[in-house]
């Protein structure tokens, strides 16, 4: 019995070590920001030893639901506008295909046996995809409506589909992918909004960092436009 209690205590201590870290900033960010923000967080942590950036990357709508339910986010970056948000970055949806794919233009999605996916209409990457597609002559249907951009991308990278409507930044980050642009670039564009939900020293500091010239330059090199 004593052994079991000791073991339980040890597990509890180890699993809660996050709360013992000196300082942390919790950032809720759209799943399309996973790669670039993980890198930005790494740079920030390097410059500020002892501070940890904790991310939750999910569909923006999911994150907003969680924040409304009281999730402890210091900073929220959404792929669509939300109450209290300020314009931050611009990204664009494209049709991503593997390099060397026979799909050369958007209307090739109509050819038989092409399997393609997009996000569900309830999340930003899906509603924007629908707007972008309305300017094209696509009559075929996606094989799945994914709950977030990163899961659509994952299925393309796994080779389970021939094409996916994802963010241009995702394509730039993957050497094996090629982007096919929509005719209506405006309709395919999304504006990310940001808000700092809690004021504390390190949240302020990280907020300054991700708005700094060097961070914006880095984000631009990854394919985002600043707003």
């Amino acid at each position, binding site marked *: 019995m004593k052994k079991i209690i000791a073991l339980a205590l040890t597990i509890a201590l180890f699993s809660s070590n996050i709360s013992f870290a000196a300082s942390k900033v919790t950032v809720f960010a759209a799943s399309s920001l996973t790669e670039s923000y993980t890198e930005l967080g790494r740079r920030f942590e390097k410059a500020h030893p002892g501070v940890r950036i904790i991310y939750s990357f999910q569909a923006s709508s999911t994150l907003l*639901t969680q924040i409304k339910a009281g999730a402890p986010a210091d900073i929220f970056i959404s792929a669509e506008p939300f109450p209290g948000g300020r314009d931050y970055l611009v990204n664009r949806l494209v049709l991503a295909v593997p390099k060397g794919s026979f799909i050369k233009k958007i209307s090739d999605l109509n050819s038989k046996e092409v399997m393609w*996916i997009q996000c569900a209409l309830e999340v930003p990457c899906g509603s924007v995809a629908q707007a972008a597609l309305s300017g094209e002559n696509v009559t075929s249907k996606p094989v*799945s409506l994914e*709950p977030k951009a990163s899961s659509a991308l994952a299925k393309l990278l796994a*080779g389970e589909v021939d094409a996916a409507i994802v963010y241009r930044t995702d394509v730039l980050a993957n050497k094996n992918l090629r982007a096919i642009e929509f005719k209506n670039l405006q309709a395919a564009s999304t504006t990310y909004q940001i808000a700092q939900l809690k004021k504390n020293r390190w949240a302020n500091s990280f907020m300054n960092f991700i708005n700094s010239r060097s961070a914006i330059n880095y984000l631009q090199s990854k394919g985002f436009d600043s707003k």
Partner: protein
Amino acid sequence: MKFGIMTKILAVAAAAIIITPLVSLIAKVPWSNFFGSLSDLTAIKLSIWTSTLAALISLTLGVPLAWILAKSSNRISNLIRPLVLAPIVLPPTVAGIALISLMGRNGLLGKSIFEITGWSMPFTTSAVVLAGIFVGMPFVVLICESNFRQLPKEIEDAAIIDRVSGNELFQKIAIPQSRSAIATGGILAWARAMGEFGATLMFAGSLPGTTQTWTMLIYQELDVNVDTAYVLSAVMLAIGVLIVFLLRKPLREAMQ
């Protein structure tokens, strides 16, 4: 029997941890809009028929496997037993990756199937059923095997004396004797398939009418229309409680 005070406190805490969230869920259900939220039954119907099919297949295949595992103790059966029970403790996402690596378009088996026929399993309703079998059948095997092992030795001895073949022993004696266990295993497999989420999302995707299951719809509606998510969850909870209630007798027998 008299219970110690500490035992009572711990027991109450245990019950409260499980019961209070369930009661809170029911309390939040928007009853005025209950049937309005259930206007589209596509996902519910899909979940019910795919998990029923998954449970039937799990029983058809799982009961013979349980019989063989129960009646043999060679190296192969000792190796297979933990492997077929693994999905019970496996995180659903791991199950999803495993299924993709077998049946995906680039999977070990799926690649050849795709090259020959042009068909691949991901994003089809068969993928939902296969995911359900993968996570559900282990319950059939687990419960039926332990039940077959407890078949009284005298019955087996009598069968040998009466020159009853092994197959007859299985079909005419073991199966009828294990009705409770088979029912329990089948219903647990059905419930597990119905609740499946992670593996289905990875392996089957989410498309209304084809692969969007009940649980997938709950996940989506939570961001769009919370009321609908609560109603869908409450109905699933009701089904779950009903299952456990109906199962109370066979469950008790199967556990003995």
